[in-house]
């Protein structure tokens, strides 16, 4: 439905939920986390592609002659990302279907990010969806900026020290060194983000975590402004310049798929 309202500008990201107590809210059990993700997506994948589906699985009631509506806009299912922090099985799933793989790239050292993405790329090629460096990769990243890096550090430190997800362990400096977290000037955020492509290869999507550690709303909105004005335009330009020919600059979203189909049709007519 959202896809219709948004004129196709929708992609879908799936995550499993990582806490035992969350699963029972949906009548499920975390020990079935991976099998559930596999089964649910196998069904969704068919529902998005087949008008009438007969289906039987383990975690829900069977479907006979079932049609999911509304049908995907122009017959193009939304592009799907499989998000995973640490389950190689989910990277495998993304690769199997030739879908995108999103790694949150926060809270973890780069060696881990590298292993997860490398596995996905290698398996994407294995399943015949194209060369490994054409696989569709998205990353996260946590940032906080001020015009001067010293001001950014000074302002963010108390939030870092007292945030349940960050505080009490390593110092802010150690944490920045050991994870992709970047607290500093816009230029430092740009440089650090560009370095991600040296870790995982050319990738297609960057999500920034800006609302974290209990920052006030006003501060978060300032961060969004700085990202939009000072960081993202430079990153787009730089990534574009660095990307080798042939590597996709973005996932195959609905408008691109339609445009490609139209171009193919036009060629056929000319021929």
């Amino acid at each position, binding site marked *: 439905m959202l896809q219709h309202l948004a004129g196709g500008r929708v992609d879908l990201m799936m995550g499993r939920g990582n806490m035992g107590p969350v699963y029972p809210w949906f009548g499920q059990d975390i020990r079935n986390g991976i099998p559930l993700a*596999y089964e649910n997506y196998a069904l969704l994948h068919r529902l998005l592609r087949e008008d009438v589906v007969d289906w039987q699985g*383990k975690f829900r009631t069977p479907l006979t002659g079932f049609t999911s509506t509304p049908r995907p806009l122009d017959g193009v299912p939304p592009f799907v990302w499989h998000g995973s922090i640490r389950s190689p099985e989910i990277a495998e799933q993304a*690769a199997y279907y030739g879908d995108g793989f999103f790694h949150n790239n926060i809270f973890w050292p780069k060696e881990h990010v590298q292993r997860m993405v490398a596995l996905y790329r290698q398996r994407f090629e294995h399943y015949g969806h194209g060369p490994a460096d054409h696989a569709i990769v998205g990353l996260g990243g946590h940032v906080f900026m001020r015009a001067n890096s010293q001001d950014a550090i000074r302002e963010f430190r108390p939030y870092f020290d007292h945030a349940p997800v960050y505080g009490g362990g390593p110092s802010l400096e150690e944490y920045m060194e050991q994870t992709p977290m970047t607290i500093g000037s816009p230029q430092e955020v740009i440089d650090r983000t560009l370095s991600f492509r040296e870790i995982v290869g050319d990738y297609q999507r960057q999500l920034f975590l800006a609302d974290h550690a209990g920052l006030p709303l006003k501060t978060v909105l300032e961060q969004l402004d700085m990202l939009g004005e000072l960081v993202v335009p430079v990153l787009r330009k730089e990534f574009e310049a660095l990307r080798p020919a042939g590597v996709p600059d973005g996932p195959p979203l609905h408008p691109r798929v339609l445009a490609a189909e139209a171009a193919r049709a036009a060629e056929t007519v000319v021929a």
Partner: protein
Amino acid sequence: MKALPARSLVVVSAGLGQPSTSRLLADRLSVAVDRYLRDVGVEADIEVIELREYAQDLTNNLLTGFPSPRLQASLDAVLGADGLIVVTPIFSASFSGLFKMFFDVIDRDGLAGKPSLIAATGGSTRHSLAIDYALRPLFAYLNAAVVATGVYAAAEDWGGAGVAGVAADSRLVERVDRAARELAAAMLAGPHRAPADPFEAPVPFEELLRWNSASGRGADD
């Protein structure tokens, strides 16, 4: 004659003092294992990890969910070792908290089948069974191949008059020797095989799907 390949022996000591009694016991054990390996012409690469140097890193690992680079290096050393000696002081009737933290953050499957020797120190012999009711179950859970003899050293084992004319210290020497011989034999019995790395040899998706429909057990069960 072709030289036999060297064996790596990693010693984990959770002693807090410097020097600590646990470290002294650890050294006696590793020297004895080294001697048994040399007797059959095998070189031992010995690395000692003093957990007190990683106390902050271990706390940070529990809070952040990932090890610092230096802690990672020590975890990797343990995972890659052909044999393992672990020594902890007994605090409040069990291994020390610092000792447990290290084995809480290590890869749960990484010690499977690894030849290991468990040892502990304490102020009194009354805690000697902690070897068998605390340490042995922990390493059984981790599927380590723990040798039959565990070594507990109390204050009175380090010299003293002993009983009936036998020096207390000589009994400790005997236990150290027996445990070391058992560990050396286990290390020589064959190279320890590391568990399969899911990143090196991924399970094909079709197979994962088949498990799904067959047994209801997930790949992470």
